[in-house]
C-alpha cells in the first residue's frame, strides 16, 4: 500500500493527479479521509509553492458597520481580514498545539502564575516600526484596562501585573493558569503599535499581508507584506481579497463561476450536491462550535432539574445532526466539550432520545402542562428555526408541550439570548476546556447564559486550572462535564463542522479545526497551481 501511496503522491507532486482523484484512491486503499487530506497537502507542498496571483476569499458574516479595530470584532469578515494584517503573540495550530507568532518563545513559572513572552527578534510592523515588548504590553492594557471596550475583556481576566523586562513581556496572574498562552491566542489580541491606543483602526500589524483598501461590508484588499518575518515560506500570493458574501447561494455561485477561490459556511444541505460540481471540493472539519438550546436554571419552570432532564431526553440528537447538519457534525451530549478538546473523557455515556424517560421526568417535575416557550431566530444558528421545529415534534411525542416562537434576528443577542429563560443559541467553542467553562459556566462569568451557579463546580475549575498533572486534570474535567450534563441548563444536540468549499486551483489546503478557511490563514499557507 505504501508504494502505491508514494506513487500517487508523486503524481500529485507532478501535477498529474487532482485532489479528488487522490482522495478517492486513498479511500479505496483504506486510508482515512483526514490522513489522506494531510498526505495530499504534503505531496502538493513537495512540488513547491507557486508564487504570485490573487487569492479571493468569499466570506459570510460581514456588515457595512465593520471596523478594523480588533477590540470590536465579532463577525467572521473582520476576523478574516484581521488574520491577514495582524498577529497575536501565539497561535493554536491545526493540531491544537501552540506556535509562536509575535512571541518567539514563552515560559510559565512552576505555579503557572507568571508567564514570560520573548518578542521575536527584528520583527517589524507593516509601517516599518520594530515591535517592542512595550507594544505588547500596551496592547494587553488596551484590551484589559478599566476603560476597555474590547470583546477580549471577558477572556483575559485576573491579571495581577504586567511588566517589560528587556526583550520580554511578563504577565502575572492572580491565580495560576496553565492555559494562559491559549487565552492570548484570542483573535482580538492583535499586537498593534502602541497597543492601538493612538489609532485603533490603523490595521497596522505584523501579518503576512498589508491592508490596501477597505470597504466595510463589501471587500478588503491586501498586498503581500514585503517585510513579513516568516519570509518566503509563507504568504505566496501577491494580493488577497476578502469579499463579503452573506448569501449562501451567492457564495456558491461566486465560487462556481470562478469569482472567488474559497468560501466558508457551505450550507450543510447542499454540501454534497455542491461537491459534485467540477473544479472544486467541499472540505469539512469537526470543530468545537456547538448549537444549543439554553435554559436558565434559576427561572421557573426550568429551576426543576426533572423538567430539564425531561427536555434533554426529549430531543433527538441523531435526527438533528442528520437533518440540520446533514451529517456534517457530531452528536452532542449536553456538555460543551467534545473530542476536539484536549483531556476529553470519552467514557462519559452518550445521552439518547428517549420519549418514555422524558415523559417520566416530565411527570415527576409536576409541570402544569402550560406551553413551554422556546425562542429562536434564523440568526441564532444556521437552521435554528428548523431545529426548534424538530425539537417541538419530538417533545410532543413525549407529551411535553413546547411552543416555538420566532424572534427577529434584529436584536436577538441583546434582547433574547442571555435574557429570556429558554432560547436557541450558538457557541463557537474555545481552544481549551478551562476557557470554555470559565466563559460560560463559572458562577461569576458574564456570559453564564444558563445561570449555572455551583460553588463546587467553580472550585473544581480553579483546581484544574493550576493542576499540572494531566491525568488528574482530566479526571476533574470529566466530573465537571458530568455535572453540566446532568444538572446544567444546557441542551446540546450537535457540534457543527466547518464546511468550506475550495477551488481545485488552490494547493496546500488543510482543514483546521480552529475555524473556517484554515482559521482564515488559507492565504498564508496555500498557493495556486
Amino acid at each position, binding site marked *: 500500500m505504501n508504494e502505491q501511496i508514494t506513487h500517487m503522491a508523486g503524481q500529485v507532486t507532478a501535477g498529474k493527479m487532482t485532489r479528488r482523484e487522490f482522495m478517492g484512491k486513498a479511500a479505496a486503499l483504506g486510508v482515512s479521509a483526514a490522513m489522506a487530506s494531510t498526505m495530499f497537502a504534503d505531496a502538493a507542498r513537495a512540488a513547491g509553492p507557486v508564487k504570485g496571483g490573487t487569492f479571493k476569499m468569499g466570506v459570510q458574516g460581514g456588515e457595512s458597520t465593520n471596523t478594523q479595530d480588533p477590540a470590536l470584532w465579532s463577525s467572521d469578515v473582520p476576523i478574516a481580514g484581521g488574520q491577514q494584517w495582524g498577529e497575536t503573540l501565539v497561535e493554536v495550530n491545526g493540531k491544537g498545539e501552540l506556535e509562536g507568532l509575535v512571541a518567539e518563545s514563552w515560559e510559565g513559572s512552576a505555579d503557572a502564575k507568571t508567564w514570560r513572552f520573548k518578542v521575536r527578534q527584528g520583527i517589524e510592523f507593516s509601517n516599518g516600526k520594530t515591535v517592542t515588548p512595550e507594544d505588547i504590553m500596551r496592547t494587553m492594557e488596551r484590551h484589559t484596562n478599566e476603560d476597555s471596550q474590547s470583546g477580549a475583556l471577558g477572556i483575559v481576566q485576573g491579571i495581577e501585573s504586567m511588566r517589560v523586562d528587556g526583550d520580554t513581556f511578563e504577565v502575572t496572574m492572580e491565580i495560576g493558569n496553565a492555559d494562559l498562552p491559549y487565552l492570548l491566542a484570542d483573535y482580538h489580541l492583535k499586537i498593534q503599535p502602541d497597543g492601538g491606543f493612538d489609532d485603533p483602526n490603523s490595521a497596522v500589524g505584523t501579518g503576512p499581508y498589508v491592508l490596501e483598501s477597505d470597504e466595510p461590508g463589501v471587500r478588503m484588499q491586501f498586498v503581500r507584506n514585503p517585510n513579513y518575518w516568516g519570509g518566503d515560506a509563507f504568504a505566496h500570493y501577491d494580493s488577497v481579497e476578502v469579499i463579503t458574501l452573506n448569501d449562501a*447561494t451567492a457564495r456558491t455561485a461566486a465560487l462556481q463561476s470562478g469569482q472567488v477561490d474559497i468560501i466558508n459556511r457551505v450550507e450543510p444541505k*447542499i454540501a454534497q450536491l455542491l461537491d459534485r460540481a467540477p473544479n472544486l471540493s467541499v472540505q469539512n472539519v469537526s470543530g468545537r462550535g456547538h448549537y444549543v438550546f439554553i435554559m436558565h436554571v434559576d427561572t421557573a419552570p426550568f429551576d426543576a432539574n426533572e423538567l430539564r432532564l425531561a427536555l434533554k431526553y426529549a430531543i433527538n440528537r441523531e435526527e438533528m445532526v442528520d*437533518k440540520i447538519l446533514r451529517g456534517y457534525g457530531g452528536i452532542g451530549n449536553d456538555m460543551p466539550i467534545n473530542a476536539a478538546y484536549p483531556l476529553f473523557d470519552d467514557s462519559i455515556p452518550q445521552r439518547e432520545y428517549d420519549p418514555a424517560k422524558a415523559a417520566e421526568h416530565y411527570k415527576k417535575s409536576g409541570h402544569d402542562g402550560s406551553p413551554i416557550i422556546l425562542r429562536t431566530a434564523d440568526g441564532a444558528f444556521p437552521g435554528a428555526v428548523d431545529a426548534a421545529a424538530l425539537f417541538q*415534534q419530538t417533545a410532543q411525542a413525549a407529551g411535553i408541550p413546547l411552543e*416555538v416562537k*420566532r424572534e*427577529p434576528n*434584529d436584536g436577538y443577542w441583546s434582547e433574547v439570548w442571555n435574557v429570556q429563560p429558554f432560547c436557541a443559541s450558538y457557541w463557537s467553542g474555545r481552544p481549551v476546556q478551562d476557557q470554555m467553562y470559565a466563559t460560560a459556566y463559572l458562577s461569576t462569568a458574564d456570559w453564564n447564559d444558563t445561570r449555572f451557579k455551583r460553588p463546587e463546580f467553580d472550585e473544581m475549575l480553579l483546581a484544574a486550572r493550576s493542576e499540572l498533572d494531566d491525568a488528574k486534570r482530566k479526571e476533574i474535567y470529566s466530573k465537571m462535564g458530568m455535572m453540566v450534563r446532568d444538572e446544567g441548563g444546557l441542551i446540546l444536540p450537535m457540534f457543527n463542522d466547518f464546511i468550506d468549499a475550495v477551488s481545485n486551483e488552490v494547493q496546500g489546503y488543510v482543514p483546521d479545526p480552529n475555524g473556517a478557511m484554515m482559521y482564515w490563514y488559507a492565504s498564508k499557507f496555500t498557493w495556486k497551481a
Partner: protein
Amino acid sequence: MKNIPISALIGLFLTALYFLMALFAPLIAPYGMAQVVGDVWEPSKIEIMLGIAPAGFTESNFWLGTDNIGRDLLSRMIYGGRTTIFIATAATILSFVTGSVLGFFAAVMGGWVDQVLSRFVDLIMSIPTLIFALVVLSVMPVTVPILIVVMGLLDSTRVYRLARAVAVDITVMDYVEAARLRGEKNGWIIFREILPNALSPLVAEMGLRFIFAVLFVSTLSFLGLGVQPPEADWGGIVKENKEGIVYGIPAALLPAVAIATLAISVNLVADWVLNRTTSLKGGRG
C-alpha cells in the same frame, strides 16, 4: 353571467380551488402541517412516475416530496395556502377600503384636507418599512391580526396615492360639477360619481396588491412579525427551501408556482371584473 370568457372561467376556477383548499385544509392534507414524516428533500411520487427522480429512489409516499426537514410538502402547502390567502385577502381589503375612501375624500374636499392627508401619507411612506415593522414588533404583541393591520395600513398609503390621483381627474369633469350644482353631498359624489369611474385602475391595482401582500407576509414573518413556526406561508416555504433551488430540488419552486398561479388567476378575474365595470358605465361595451 352567460358570457364569461374562458380565461375568466379558468381564473375563477383556480381561485375558487385555492380558496376551498384553504378552507378545508385539515380535511385534504394527507399529513399534519408540522409532522416530520420523512428524510430531507425526498423526491415526490410525481418525479418517480416521470422517471426524473435522483438515482436510488424508486418509491415515495409523498405527492410533492418532502421539505427541508422532512415534512410533507403538499400538506405544508395546503396549510400554508390557508395562512397566505387569509392574511393577504384581509390585508388587501383593509388597504383598499382605507386607501381608496381616504383618497377619494381628499380629492373631493380639496384644499387643506387634501393637503394634510396627502402630506401625512408622504410622511408614512418615507419611514423605511424595516424600521416601521421593528417598532411595531417591539411595542405590540406579535399576532396575525396585528400583521394584517400593519400590512393593510402600509399598503393603503400606496392605494391612497393612486385613488386620489384618479379621483382628482374625475372631480373636474362636467358631470361631477353638475352633481355639485344639484346640491349632492360629498358622500353621494364619492360613491355615485367617482367610484364607478375610478374602478378600472383600482381593480387592476387590487389584483397586484394582493400579490404583493402574499410576498410581504413572508418578509414580515421572517422579521418575527405574525406567522410563527411551524406555521408557514407560501413565501416562507420558498425561503425555507431556497438553498435547494439551483440543484433541481422542487421544494422551493412548487410554492413559487402556487403563488404565480394564484396571482395569475386572481388577475384574470380582475381583468374580467374590469371589463364588466367599463361596460357598466354605459359605453359601447
